């Protein structure tokens, strides 16, 4: 019934394969030196290569320099994820009723929240809150206006702005 797109092994994948062979061990060492032992350097190195596979690989002159650039982004995401997971547990502890979710669902929630957080980065406090109240809490514009102490037309502008930023971010993230 469904059609999964064909999964071609292609030239870029071979290039990444070579990169992996030559520099994977080195990258693990590099990460371990920066992370200390409480974080898994091997996992982050793995994530770095996964990101290369999912992205478009440019012509690389200095592979290690390039790997480090990508690895740094992976590290930032890793710390953001840990912070987010802490916040999630905190929020969970405050729920009146324990919500039970499977590890898969939780992972998915985390992924979506991370993406959402990235999309909203740099947006002012009020537009961000207006968007979240509307999307996550299902509040209408009047309620949001009252909560934020602004007019309904401001709320409309905030939502438009936040939505636009999310859409443009998602588009750029794909390219």
């Amino acid at each position, binding site marked *: 019934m*469904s059609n*999964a797109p064909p999964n071609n092994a292609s030239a870029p994948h071979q290039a990444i394969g070579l990169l992996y062979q030559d520099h994977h061990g080195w990258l693990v060492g590099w990460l371990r030196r920066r992370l200390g032992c409480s974080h898994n350097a091997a996992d982050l190195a793995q994530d770095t290569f996964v990101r290369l596979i999912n992205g478009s690989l440019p012509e690389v002159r200095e592979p290690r320099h390039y790997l480090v650039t990508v690895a740094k982004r992976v590290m930032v995401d890793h710390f953001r994820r840990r912070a987010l997971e802490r916040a999630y547990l905190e929020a969970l502890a405050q*729920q009146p009723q324990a919500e039970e979710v499977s590890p898969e669902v939780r992972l998915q929630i985390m992924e979506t929240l991370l993406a*959402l*957080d990235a999309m909203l980065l740099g947006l002012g406090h009020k537009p961000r809150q207006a968007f979240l109240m509307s*999307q*996550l809490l299902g509040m209408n514009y009047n309620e949001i206006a009252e909560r934020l102490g602004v007019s309904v037309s401001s709320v409309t502008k905030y939502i*438009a702005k936040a939505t636009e930023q*999310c859409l*443009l971010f998602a588009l750029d993230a794909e390219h």
Partner: protein
Amino acid sequence: MPTDRQRAALRMAAHWYAVLGASTREEDRLAWHEWHAQAPENQWAWQRLENLQQQLQGLPGNLAFQTISSEWGRDRRTVLKGLVLLAGGSTLAWTARQNLPWQPWVADQRSAIGERRSLTLADGSRLHLNTASAVDIRFDAQQRLIELQAGEIQVETVPDPARPFLVATRDGLIRALGTRFTVRQRKAFTEVGVLQHAVAVTLKQTPQPDTLVQAGQCLAFDASHTQPLRPLDPLASEWTNGRLVIDGWRLADTLEELSRYRPGLLSCDSSIADLRLSGAYPLDDTDQALAAIVRALPVHIVSLTRYWVRLVPIG
């Protein structure tokens, strides 16, 4: 690379989304409709907006809001409390399981149309029932048996060397050799999809060797035949997350799948049956899913009652 026209269309989509969120005026709706019909970019942009929406709708609202609006990780004590609670909970469950020997355990479980349920079985295994499903659960000293009478389940087993975990359907017997798989009883056959490790399938009427289905594979079989193994659609078990996620499905197939989750008849005109759809739809609100489909395709809804809904081409 994204073009300027695409960016402009996304900007307008965001504008319309915000406007329609505040307004119930017919003029606004008509104006939106005109914009939407104006250019393929506009439809593309609106579809992306809906995808974003659907992605966010999958979040548990309150919890997600609190998580993302809090200043992350500020109060470490509360965090620690949460961690201890979680760890404590599982230790307790584990001890309880260790101390209590197995006991014969019989339970029949049903889910209504549109309902999804998750259960923890007597051995600690997890059972998810999809919409309109029925199982009889028979656990004893020799085996852990689930008889699937109708519908679809997903099972996450815990190992028990002494007692195999079995799922029986009209067409045969599925023996778990690992942890996670789905079983769906269709009209003419059974479908099993393996997410982790493997299962062995024995057909009811043919004494042929078991068919091994590995993680990432899917097998359809009836009482006397197996079809060739196919790769498992990784999106097929998204129902456990309350969503139907599809990629390039025919409209007719999409509606057939959605109709499992709502009472009544849901159909479409044959002239639009082959239109293709991609997206994520909430299973708890199939009206909303239909509304999203109508916005994405040149179709509209004709409904006599909530129980008789038909999609027809526009114009």
